[in-house]
């Protein structure tokens, strides 16, 4: 790395740290603190997940297992700190979570990392279901449906730092988010991190140059499990409770959506995904009851049209800025974005009206005018918006491919 780029990276990390410190001063309300704590947990979990998906090409449908087990280890340790008067501060529990996640990864990865691709995904699904089912069965460990709760105010305090006030919980989570993010970023620069990329792209060649792809996968799996466990322990300290649900398919699916929508190909992608989806979850759910449908729609659109996710789009724009091609590419991108927004608007309108067909309620309102679901005209408008948006997207794509707007508007293919 050259001096200038080292300086730049240092600046970015410094900026990240300052952002984490300043955030609660800007958003000081209780609700925003709660939301930021939840986002912090998801950021670590999504980054840990992407270590598998983005960096090593392993699609896991059961990563919540490590998150949950890390959380359970932390909550049991919390109880032990209280009852046994262990001299460990609660603020150090993420280390316990990390080790628990890693231990679970060591056992499960031992057989699941022998396979890659689709079989690996299937094993992870099977193991996930298995552990989630036993979570409800072994009541003494997992606490049955109510889960296990703890008390984060127990144990000694470091430099008078207690986990009582909510702002302190925020700084506790922020510290660990920063540490974990930095560690995971540093991991991408290590030889093992680079090898993981190589295994993702071409395992045969990695085997030819003398490394064992299985071993590389296993090591990455271990570390990823550790960070997932760390995220689980943050969640345990934040909520002071952990339930077997956290081990299950819903949690595994959520982290997959975050990492992929945010962008699996770039390091910061999952952070975008975690923030975006957590915000959607907490804010959108106030406006509409079907926000999960929008999330699903967003996921399918990303899989189809932007396989590198939102982070990939951001990286593309940054790359164009660096090369000085922004002026040339921007009009096409803006037009594509406009088309996407129009089509999504039409889809939202159709979905909201469809929801009211069954449930009733006040008519869907946008830009000051109401669109009753009983009127055929509002359905026509929704369909028209979707069609218009898709048409704009098609023209924008052709524009980029054919070089000029005039050629893009002509229906027939022109010879290049």
């Amino acid at each position, binding site marked *: 790395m050259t001096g200038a780029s080292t300086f730049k990276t240092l600046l970015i990390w410094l900026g990240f740290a300052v952002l984490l410190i300043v955030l609660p001063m800007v958003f000081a309300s209780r609700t925003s603190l709660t939301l930021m704590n939840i986002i912090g947990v998801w950021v670590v979990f999504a980054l840990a997940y992407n270590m598998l998906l983005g960096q090593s090409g392993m699609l896991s449908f059961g990563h919540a297992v490590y998150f949950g087990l890390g959380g359970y280890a932390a909550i049991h340790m919390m109880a032990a700190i209280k009852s046994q008067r262990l001299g460990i501060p609660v603020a150090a529990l993420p280390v316990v979570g990390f080790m628990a996640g890693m231990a679970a990864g060591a056992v499960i990865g031992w057989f699941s990392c022998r396979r890659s691709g689709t079989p690996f*995904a299937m*094993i992870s699904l099977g193991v996930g279901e298995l552990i989630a089912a036993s979570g409800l*069965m072994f009541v003494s460990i997992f606490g049955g449906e109510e889960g296990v709760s703890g008390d984060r105010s127990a144990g000694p305090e470091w430099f008078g730092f207690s986990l009582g006030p909510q702002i302190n919980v925020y700084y506790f989570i922020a510290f660990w988010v920063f540490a974990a993010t930095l560690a995971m970023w540093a991991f991408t620069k290590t030889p093992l991190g680079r090898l993981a990329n190589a295994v993702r792209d071409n395992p045969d060649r990695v085997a030819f140059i003398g490394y064992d792809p299985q071993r590389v996968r296993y090591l990455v799996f271990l570390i990823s499990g550790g960070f997932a466990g760390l995220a689980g322990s943050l969640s345990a300290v934040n909520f002071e409770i952990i339930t077997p649900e956290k081990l299950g*398919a819903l949690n595994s699916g959520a982290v*997959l959506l975050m990492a992929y929508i945010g962008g699996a190909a770039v390091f910061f992608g999952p952070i975008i995904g975690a923030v975006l989806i957590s915000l959607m979850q907490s804010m959108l759910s106030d406006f509409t009851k079907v926000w999960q*449908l929008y999330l*699903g729609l967003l996921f399918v659109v990303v899989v189809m049209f932007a*396989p590198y996710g939102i982070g990939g789009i951001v990286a593309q724009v940054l790359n164009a800025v660096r090369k000085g091609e922004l002026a040339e590419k921007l009009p096409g991108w803006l037009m594509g974005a406009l088309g996407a927004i129009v089509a999504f608007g039409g889809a939202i309108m159709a979905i909201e009206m469809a929801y009211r067909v069954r449930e009733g309620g006040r008519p869907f309102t946008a830009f000051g005018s109401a669109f009753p679901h009983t009127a055929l005209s509002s359905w026509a408008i929704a369909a028209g918006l979707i069609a218009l948006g898709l048409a704009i997207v098609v023209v924008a794509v052709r524009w980029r491919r054919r070089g000029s707007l005039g050629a893009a508007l002509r229906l027939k293919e022109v010879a290049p």
Partner: protein
Amino acid sequence: MMETIVFSTLNGVLYGLLLFMLASGLTLIFSMMGVLNFAHASFYMLGAYVAFTLGSVTGFWVALILAPLVVGLFGAVVERFGLRHVHKNGHVAELLFTFGIAYLIEEIVKLIWGKNPLPYTPPPILQQPLFTLWGTHYPAFRIFMMVVAIAMFVALWALLKRTRVGLIVQASLSNPHMVGHLGHNVPLVFMGVFAVGCAMAGLAGVIGGALLVTDPAMALTLGPIVFVVVVVGGMGSLGGAFVASILIGLIQTFAVAVDASLSDLLARFGILVSNRSDLGRITLAQVAPMLPFLILVLVLIFRPRGLMGARES
């Protein structure tokens, strides 16, 4: 004792055949296109819901024919406008796409039909008892279901192995370019295969929805088990899927029926577990939902190609 064994066998085979109806479509799609369709159980769910809605207008028998067609058509649309574009990004992208579709279908079903279970039942003529064993009536619908499942297996097998269409479909898998040069429309073949697979899931839904429950969670409960069946049977092997379906159906039904705890089982092997510990209290019936996944993991460790699979993955 005899009663338990006979009923468990009957119900186990019944459940296994339902699993097979789902697994056969999934196996077909997987073996032809290499796509492990994560949304397969969602098409099953759609079949049940569409049949319920159609059935309230046209009656059960018309819905039995129409609902799978509707689901198959929907599957064709999904393949044509979705899956085909994702194909170039590799198998993981395809798996993710079908995962997204499964998520979407579940939400759409909740949007249209609500979150509560539907009162979807078989027609009265199939509800009457066919025979009575030890005082318990065995409804005709269950036998009807067995007949449909077996007919489906035979039809599919005959189509693939005995007709020209099957020949082209099989050739498209191994030599798509050659088949294309011979003048067949290979993308159309794939679309057709996907549609037929989805229609089969839809047919399973028409019957399974009436047999079990029709609610938005039905895809999530059955979906993972169908994967287990396909993987345990050997990916892409129709016969393997059949054997694995029946096997898992029987194992799960017997585990529910047997009223023993794990500690009883362990005691047979001389391991004594206190009745007050978790391990002592858990009954075999409680473990039943876990068994398929245990089998999946064991098979993938010790026999990765499954019971009757030809290739590894």
